[in-house]
């Protein structure tokens, strides 16, 4: 079971480098303010299959992931304490993330690795239980935790801390916060179409940008899948050369040896594509992360729109109530209203009734003004905090994607070098023919 492992220490993070993003991530963390990751080393070490009964009492197999933590100060002091650890399912990660999204609507919350395998090129398994998929998911989950734990705002969250340290009862704790009701109402509101009168210019721009980012990354992922399929075919067909060279070498005297060896190299060439494409999946995962990030960004902008809309509704309501008060007080009907008409037709009400109505209105107006004040503050705060996080996000995105492109270029170079090697070997065999 996990223990409390809080300690203030400015230590260097020497977590294991499992993904390239870890490297840049650790650099990012060090320049931020004090956050969880500086106090605690986190990793998702393993994955295991479990069987059990699910909510509807059906037998199911699922994967659990081992979340390990170690106190940074102990590491800095050179001690090497064994990690505290607990097992978490993907659904628990999802729960954590949903909680964070609701609790921090103005933060671009880091995404989880994909729930189901998508953008799969045909030889890649789409099975969630496939070991390669599980391994990539493990990396993705670790990445998620590292990003959250290094975020200046998110890393301070208590539920996050408990997620990392409290294996049992954590889910109940999260539900007790009641975030789900907030989530449900927000979700309903967000899915409705509404128009905002005076939209926040920069946030609207960001929303459009997020749409673009989403469309570009998904297009890229789709195109990459097709390219991968074709590349696979090209390499594999070369394997046939191996077979025919071997057969041909059997009828040749001087040429035989050279042909036979060359054939082996052709076989090696055909086989090399498997590793090449597997490595490329890491690049695809980085793109997928930002595809999901684009959705998160969009959500932040939309939630501000919702706040803005609610503010405008509240303001509108206040204005109309004030108008009603004025009408009642002065008896002058400025705008057409049914009340006005009935008053004209049937005469006005008794003074006591009017008094009661006026008092009620005053109350409502006072409430309304409070509401508007709150909503305005909320909206402004949301916009301000959102913008701050969006700026942070943009920098992170630029850095991460640039790094991803560098890695992709390195992969391409490696592929070319392998190709040159194989064909040079084959050429030497041909020369000996």
């Amino acid at each position, binding site marked *: 079971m996990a223990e409390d492992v809080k300690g203030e220490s400015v230590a260097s993070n020497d977590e294991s480098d499992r993904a390239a993003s870890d490297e840049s991530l650790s650099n990012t963390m060090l*320049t931020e303010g004090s956050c969880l990751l500086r106090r605690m080393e986190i990793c998702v070490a393993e994955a295991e299959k479990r069987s059990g009964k699910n909510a509807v009492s059906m037998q199911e197999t699922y994967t659990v992931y081992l979340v390990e933590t170690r106190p940074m100060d102990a590491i800095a002091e050179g001690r090497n304490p064994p990690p505290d650890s607990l097992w978490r399912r993907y659904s628990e990660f999802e729960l954590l993330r949903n909680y964070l999204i609701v609790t921090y609507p103005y933060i671009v919350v880091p995404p989880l690795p994909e729930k189901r395998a998508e953008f799969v090129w045909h030889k890649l398994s789409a099975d969630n239980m496939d070991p390669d998929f599980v391994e990539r998911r493990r990396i993705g989950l670790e990445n998620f935790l590292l990003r959250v734990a290094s975020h200046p705002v998110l890393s301070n969250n208590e539920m996050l801390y408990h997620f990392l340290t409290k294996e049992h009862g954590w889910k109940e704790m999260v539900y007790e916060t009641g975030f789900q009701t907030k989530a449900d109402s927000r979700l309903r509101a967000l899915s409705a179409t509404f128009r905002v009168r005076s939209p926040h210019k920069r946030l609207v721009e960001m929303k459009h*940008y997020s749409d*673009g*980012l989403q469309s*570009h*990354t998904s*297009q*890229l992922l789709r*195109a*990459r899948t*097709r*390219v991968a*399929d*074709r*590349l696979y*075919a*090209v390499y594999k*067909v*070369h394997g*046939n*050369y191996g077979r*025919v060279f071997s*057969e*041909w070498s059997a*009828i040749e005297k*001087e*040429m035989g040896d050279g042909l036979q060896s*060359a054939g082996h190299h052709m076989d090696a060439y055909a086989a090399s594509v498997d590793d090449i494409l597997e490595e490329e999946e890491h690049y695809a995962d980085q793109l997928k992360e930002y595809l999901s990030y684009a959705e998160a960004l969009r959500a932040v902008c939309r939630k501000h729109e919702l706040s803005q809309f609610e503010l405008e509704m509240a303001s509108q309501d206040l204005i109309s109530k004030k108008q009603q008060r004025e009408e009642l007080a002065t008896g002058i009907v400025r705008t057409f209203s049914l009340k006005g008409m009935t008053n004209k037709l049937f005469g006005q009400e008794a003074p006591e009734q009017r008094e009661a109505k006026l008092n009620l209105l005053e109350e409502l107006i006072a409430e309304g003004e409070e509401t508007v004040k709150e909503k305005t503050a909320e909206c402004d705060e949301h916009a301000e905090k959102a913008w701050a996080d969006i700026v942070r996000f943009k*920098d992170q*995105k*630029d*850095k991460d*994607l*640039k*790094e991803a*492109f*560098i890695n*992709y*270029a*390195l992969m*391409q*170079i490696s592929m*070319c*070098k392998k*190709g*040159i090697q194989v*064909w*040079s070997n*084959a*050429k030497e065999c*041909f*020369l000996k*023919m």
Partner: protein
Amino acid sequence: MSVGAPRGLASSGQKLITEILHPLSAAEEPLSPGQDVTISAEKDKEPGLTNGTPVEISSPASASVLLSRLQLDCEPEADAHDAFGSGEPRDLFVTVNDPKKHVSTMETYITYRVSTKTTRIEFDLPEYSVRRRYQDFDWLRIKLEDSQPTHLVPPLPEKFVMKGVVDRFSEEFVDTRMKALDKFLKRVADHPVLSFNPHLNAFLTAKDLNKRQGLALLTKVGESVKNVAGGYKLRARPAEFSAMGEYLDTFSQKLGTIDRISQRILREQSEYLTELREYGAVYSTWAASEEQLQRPLEGVAGCVTTSCGALEDLSDNMSQDFLPVLREYVLYIESMKSVLRKRDQVQAEYEGRLEAAVLRKQEDRTPIPVEVEKCQDKVECFNADLKADWERWQRNKRQDFKQLLTGMADKNINYYEKSQAAWESLIPLLQEKQTEDKTSETN
């Protein structure tokens, strides 16, 4: 009865068996096709031979003496390194180049320049330059086959192309065809017997190739081989010729397989190229909506584009240089198999006649007729020619395929080198921007 034939061109006065007068035909036209060449309709009946050297006429009129003569004349193994099987330095150089389109009211066609440089005395001038079209090459080949049926005549590129499917006047097609014609002519010019054929001489030198004239300078051997009586069954094909046949069958099969594989690769590469292009385009589109990432994204798009270009070059190369040579060899093999069949026929006729003659001799002591001995000579000549050509063909084949396959390897290496260079040049571009960002952060 097969005879070991001298390997190479007649050198130091020694002649190939075909160039030596048959002891029984001293008064008749010589066997050799290598005549003093004057382009006239008449056949020269002088028993002169190539190179103007005196004729060696063996006096004893028996096949066995001829045989022993051959054995004496047998040259040691020709240079293994001499790819052309010639003990002499080459003295005939031909080149096919400079295609030009001719448009007339009747037809449109391409001609090629055929340039010749030679020191041979059969040629009046040391240099020639004529223009020939495919038809002319075809004529030459037919004439060579007819007049030299015991030899392997190299193949021509395919004659017919489906109009509408292949553009006969496209640069690629013309270039591919020209290279094949050049190869054909070079192979003929390097052949110790074919290169002395008067038809070749006419082809290389005549201003106007009058194909209808009776330049049918058929040799005795040629004539006789053409008129081989059919209907004889071959009794015992020498093992080496059977082996040749089997080899050719298997080899032809393997070449066909390689052709199919290569075509499949080309198809897959084409599809890959299509997807790669679209893939690169997405990076460009994305770049337009980014600020800091614009240059990196465009950089990636650029690398993908470069790779596409390199891939296209590779594919073009395979279809223009690799596949045609493969197909040419398949044609070569076909013509070789037909020569083998002819050889079988000649041998079969000899065997049949010999058997009949032996029987008659047993019956009434009639001596073996001259005809039978002539048949025997035919067989021996044919076998000798064929074996010499086979060896030459094997050497050339080895060279050709070594060249072809290393060429294929080179082109692939080239492709990867170009792609690698592009990606390598991108990395500093991507990295340098990063350090720029870092400096701006710390500021």
